């Protein structure tokens, strides 16, 4: 490997795989695309899944591998939510791009260069429904000469007629093992020392999101030097310590509202995200022993679900946590559940 160049790009970009075969953990899509490289043909594609699992990486890699640097500009149109994608853009920009004819299949400079163009619509879930509808026609009209790659986090926001025209690939959160391999590779390149415990901590705090893992790793490397421990990683990741959530739960168990209120005050002052507290509280409740009945667990979980939705709607974190605390107190002391 060539010496690492001083780069002004964060590691996540520096270590973005350039080739489809280097995309980890998404075997299905890699298989289909490898095939594409041989046959120089592929269907429209829809990639969906949580952040940091390789969707954008894969789309960019295949486009580059198909056309190479010279043809890339004329054959690939990359649009994302930052470019305005109202109906108008779909009608004009995409049409203009799709309409210009391309020559027949001829390999150039070692690249397959198939006779179609690729339009990558990243973050397609933020396109308006009208714009998506307008795309249906375009896709059909130019289906011989274009392939669409839709990329999104939430497949439910893509209208059915579009989704059904594509081969769909779900990008899975990366497994601990795959994540570990990729991290080790980067450690190698950067000359970092990461023990087994630190490795597994890193995988577990990033929850299948490799981008997050890489960011944590880079930050820890800057802060703590080339030997990184598990504590260092927890430090940069800002995960909520388990004790904090346990204390809240214990306070609720005591049945004393004022004590629970105090815990909520502290959590908010410490700046811990309510959404994360709720996730962790959920784990504690579900795994709790026999001193809590299934019915009580169900009651608490019901409230957690409601709160999760409200937080997504933008409700106030403090009031929501207080509501969780008060509901939990009521469930645990078997008070009536409804007001």
């Amino acid at each position, binding site marked *: 490997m060539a010496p690492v160049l001083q780069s002004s790009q964060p590691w*996540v*970009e520096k270590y973005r795989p350039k080739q489809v075969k280097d995309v980890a953990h998404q075997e299905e899509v890699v298989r289909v695309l490898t095939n594409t490289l041989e046959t120089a043909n592929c269907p429209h594609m829809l990639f969906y899944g949580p952040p940091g699992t390789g969707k954008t990486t894969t789309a960019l890699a295949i486009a580059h591998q198909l056309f190479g640097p010279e043809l890339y500009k004329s054959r690939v149109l990359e649009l994302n939510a*930052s470019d305005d994608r109202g109906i108008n853009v779909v009608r004009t920009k995409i049409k203009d791009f799709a309409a210009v004819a391309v020559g027949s299949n001829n390999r150039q400079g070692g690249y397959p260069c198939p006779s179609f163009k690729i339009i990558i619509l990243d973050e397609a879930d933020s396109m308006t429904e009208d714009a998506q509808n307008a795309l249906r026609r375009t896709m059909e009209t130019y289906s011989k000469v274009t392939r669409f790659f839709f990329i999104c986090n939430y497949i439910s926001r893509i209208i059915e007629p579009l989704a059904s025209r594509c081969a769909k690939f779900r990008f899975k959160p990366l497994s601990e093992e795959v994540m570990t391999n990729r991290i080790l590779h980067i450690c190698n390149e950067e000359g970092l020392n990461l023990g087994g415990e630190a490795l597994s901590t890193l995988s577990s705090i990033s929850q299948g999101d490799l*981008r997050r893992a890489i960011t944590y790793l880079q930050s820890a490397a800057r*802060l703590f030097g080339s030997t990184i421990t598990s504590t260092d990683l927890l430090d940069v990741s800002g995960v909520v310590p388990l004790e904090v959530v346990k204390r809240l739960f214990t306070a609720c168990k005591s049945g004393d509202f004022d004590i629970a209120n105090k815990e909520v005050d502290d959590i908010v002052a410490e700046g811990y995200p309510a959404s994360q507290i709720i996730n962790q509280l959920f784990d504690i409740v579900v795994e709790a022993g026999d001193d809590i009945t299934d019915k009580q667990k169900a009651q608490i979980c019901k409230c957690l679900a409601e709160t999760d939705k409200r937080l997504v*709607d933008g409700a106030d974190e*403090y009031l929501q946590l207080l*509501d969780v*605390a008060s509901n939990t107190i009521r469930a645990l002391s078997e008070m009536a559940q409804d007001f």
Partner: protein
Amino acid sequence: MLWVDKYRPKSLDKVVVHEDIAQNLKKLVTEQDCPHLLFYGPSGSGKKTLIVALLKQIYGASAEKVKVENRAWKIDAGSRTLDLELTILSSTNHVELTPSDAGFQDRYIVQEIIKEMAKNRPIDTKGKKGYKVLVLNEVDKLSREAQHSLRRTMEKYSSSCRLILCCNSSSKVTEAIKSRCLNVRINAPSKEEIVKVLEFIAKKESLQLPQGFAARIAEKSNRSLRRAILSLETCRVQNYPFTDNQVISPMDWEEYVAEIATDMMREQSPKSLFQVRGKVYELLVNCIPPEVIMKRLLHELLKKLDSELKLEVCHWAAYYEHRMRLGQKAIFHIEAFVAKFMSIYKNFLISTFG
């Protein structure tokens, strides 16, 4: 100049609290490849102070030469042209703005400015191409569309433009954005740390600061450093030399909310509801954010209630604040909460005392 501004530490080495975070930030920007950053934490905890000091660390004194301007944009949004205007702060190498001020149009502003900034990259002292920094305030108030549209942009322009995002509530920032940043939590300083800052300021101002008094200010500040410093300055004007038990007056609006709570406890009737409505309206007109009113009102009510009622009242406060978020007119939802409270409390009084 107010003390909060006068004694805002100017560099990462001079901070009085969050020293460890400041040192870490310093190391983080030693190389040119630092990731995007997301600062989050409660109000008055010191986020902005750290961000400003960090900019100085990266760019030196030039980061302090900030100019304020009202920028107007003409944005070509397909079929029509949008005229947008926003206040921005900028120095040679950074731009700071609060995009949520542009309401639903926030995403256009964010896009335009990033593209603009990416066009001319600064060259650092060693002749390397550096990056510019875009500071976005209140990203928790950014529309979903604006947050979505940041996703790819943050990656695409990452070599020429670094984002520093700042917000109170990180639950409101989408996972996709959080995944693209190093998340930096700025907790509210502890009471002891607040006392330390107060003592620091007192020393600079050559004031005698009795220990008990400083502790009381810290206690009443609700762990907001800004609040504590403002209190200290107000007290200085009201009465000096300080005494251990001198009055620390609450803010006007807080007293007003306390009054509303008393009204609600005293009489539960349509007439009383009408009066309370007037007072809440008064607060809103004076730009006290509705969720702040709701929280303070709950706080005051909880002080006066029996424990069984507390649970129920909390539940409804959370319920109506959420509805307020979805609705458009805050006053409706605060009033609904007040009415709900009155009904609960009246029932309680009847069942207890007949």
